[in-house]
């Protein structure tokens, strides 16, 4: 059997399609056992949303427009969060993901400071799920304890699950076999996930678009999340 090419997981976010419904945020919470911290803590800035939809307002009232940008761990190829971790809790996987080993994390929070996107989240307290919410915890994802950093994993449990299923059926992983919770639940299909090393994948096709751009690209972090620039506003009166 010839050696399989290494996977390079990536996500494409089509900003023209995003309407800011935040279904992805809810799906992410449910899939990844992300605790809700309560009103008071959220107001302090301790809300944990691995996936968030950033809102930017443009223009003067009444001619105001809202821009939505879904933002989640950019899974950088040259991630600033990785080298600074003293215990290898954040590390680079062979498939280009920014791994986070919860058990290895001692909570220096250095990775979160180094992350230019502020996409790492810290467990300030032990998480609590009030009954009966504890029954909906996803058994495929570990629950994190106090003092541990966490962040979007590209739903690594789904990637692994799809690989195992494919191996059981004695076949290769197909494009579209892996669907992170956010992409699966996105009504307008603004989020597309796949292997960037496979030139025929949907992600590769979209990444070749001339609308493709990356967040804070100038910092040299080489993110694996590709944004397709919003162009629809430019039709009509605005040039």
């Amino acid at each position, binding site marked *: 059997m010839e050696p399989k090419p290494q996977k390079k997981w990536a996500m494409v976010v089509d900003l023209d399609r995003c309407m800011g419904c935040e279904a992805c945020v809810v799906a992410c919470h449910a899939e990844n056992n992300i605790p809700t911290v309560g009103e008071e803590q959220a107001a302090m800035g301790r809300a944990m949303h691995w996936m968030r939809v950033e809102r930017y307002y443009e223009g003067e009232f009444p001619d105001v427009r809202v821009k939505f940008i879904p933002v989640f761990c950019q899974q950088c190829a040259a991630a600033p969060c990785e080298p600074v971790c*003293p*215990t290898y809790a954040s590390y680079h996987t062979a498939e280009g993901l920014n791994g986070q080993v919860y058990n290895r994390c001692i909570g220096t929070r*250095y990775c979160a400071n180094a992350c230019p996107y502020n996409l790492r989240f810290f467990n*300030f307290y032990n998480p609590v799920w009030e009954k009966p919410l504890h029954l909906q915890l996803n058994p495929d994802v570990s629950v994190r304890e106090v*003092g541990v950093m966490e962040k979007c994993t590209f739903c690594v449990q789904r990637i692994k699950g799809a690989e195992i299923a494919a191996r059981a059926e004695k076949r290769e992983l197909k494009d579209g076999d892996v669907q992170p919770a956010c992409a699966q639940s996105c009504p307008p299909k603004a989020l597309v996930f796949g292997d960037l090393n496979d030139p025929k994948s949907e992600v590769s096709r979209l990444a070749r678009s001339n609308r493709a751009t990356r967040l804070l690209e100038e910092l040299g972090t080489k993110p694996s999340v590709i944004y397709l620039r919003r162009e629809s506003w430019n039709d009509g009166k605005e040039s």
Partner: protein
Amino acid sequence: MEKSPNQITEDLLRPLFQTSGRFFAVVAILGAFVVAAFSAFMYQGYTGIGVWGIRRPVFWAFDITNFVFWIGISHAGTLISAILRLANATWRRPVTRCAEVITVFALSIGAMFPIIHLGRPWLAFWLIPYASERQIWPNFRSPLVWDFFAINTYLIGSVAFLTLPIIPDWALVRDKTSGWRKRVYGILSLGWRGTPKQWSRLETAMHIMAIAIIPVAVSVHTIVSWDFAMAPVPMWHSTIFGPYFVAGAIFSGIAALIIAMACLRKLLHLEDYLKPVHFDSLGKLLLMMSLLWFYFVFAERLTVWYGNEPSEMAVFWTTQQGAYAPLFWTMVFCNFLLPFPILAIKRLRTIAGTVIASMGVVMGMWLERFLIIVPSLSHKYVPYSWGTYRPTWVEITIMTGTFAGMALLYALFSKAVPIISIWELKVGFQKKSGVRSQAATGQRELTTGLEPKLET
């Protein structure tokens, strides 16, 4: 006015043998603060670090401010004393030990913060490279691991640097006491007899340590600065940080030393030993460091402003005229506008003057560290996730406890060890009064025969 050697011994050993009720009261008060801080830390460990005010995106605040601050204070001692020893500044003699003690205690306190600020402090030992069943080493690319090694090296080095010149003094105490004290000081003095061979070895060891400790001290604060400079955070990612931090550390260190000396002078009645001339000399050093500090801040700020890089300008303006501006300008006042005239004008460079200037500097340097950490973290690249920070009582209690702890350790130390090096003072006295004609031939020869004669 010169004191006789016996008078010196008596004066400087007095705190070891006479303890007033006031001392116990002070220890009790300081101890209460330390206990409060410890309880606050226990509460934090039990509940979770959420009882602190840190929040996304300001994940470091008071904790690391205090860490850098105390490591900075620790540069008082060893570095200043080593430089003064090597430069053979004769006025250093009554100053060196007070300074070296600050280093050891401030470093111990500072080194505590990286541990207590962890989300899971009980796992701090994972930074130690030891053979484990998990077969994982610490990540040597992480500046925090560099910190671990740098601070431990400095701690070991400065403990050695402090204790080496204490040995003859401990032997002196041993010879002057009886009972349990004699036994304890007998063990501490490591069989010191004052033989020529022992003096010669002590001189050599101190000389080696004085030279070795300087690069260690410089590297420690450089590496502390790299905790920030290595991360791509606006206004952290700068090459100026290494020297900037080292200069700031020496700056705050000298200020702490002046305050400590003024307290010792008053409380232990050392007016005849810690004289205005010492405060004057240290005041001049502080003046130089104040100018250097101003130069660094100016260079850092000007290049950022001129470069006009948007993400850095967000941090820049928030400190110059935004939410952090009151703190910034207080810092400039405390670190430059206040101490500069006091220290530059000879008439104002008195003991009271230098102490006022030093208090300003200590406060200003604490603010400086806070202003390096918090505004940058709260204004990173993406405006959507800008944030803020406010400390809670837990952080404030822990911080107060460290200041009380420093004073407590210092007070206890001055009861166990002569806070001014007795034998070094006598050497200086002998040299100056020319009691022995061969004084000019060098300190080693002089000290060789000196001690037995003075013991009588």
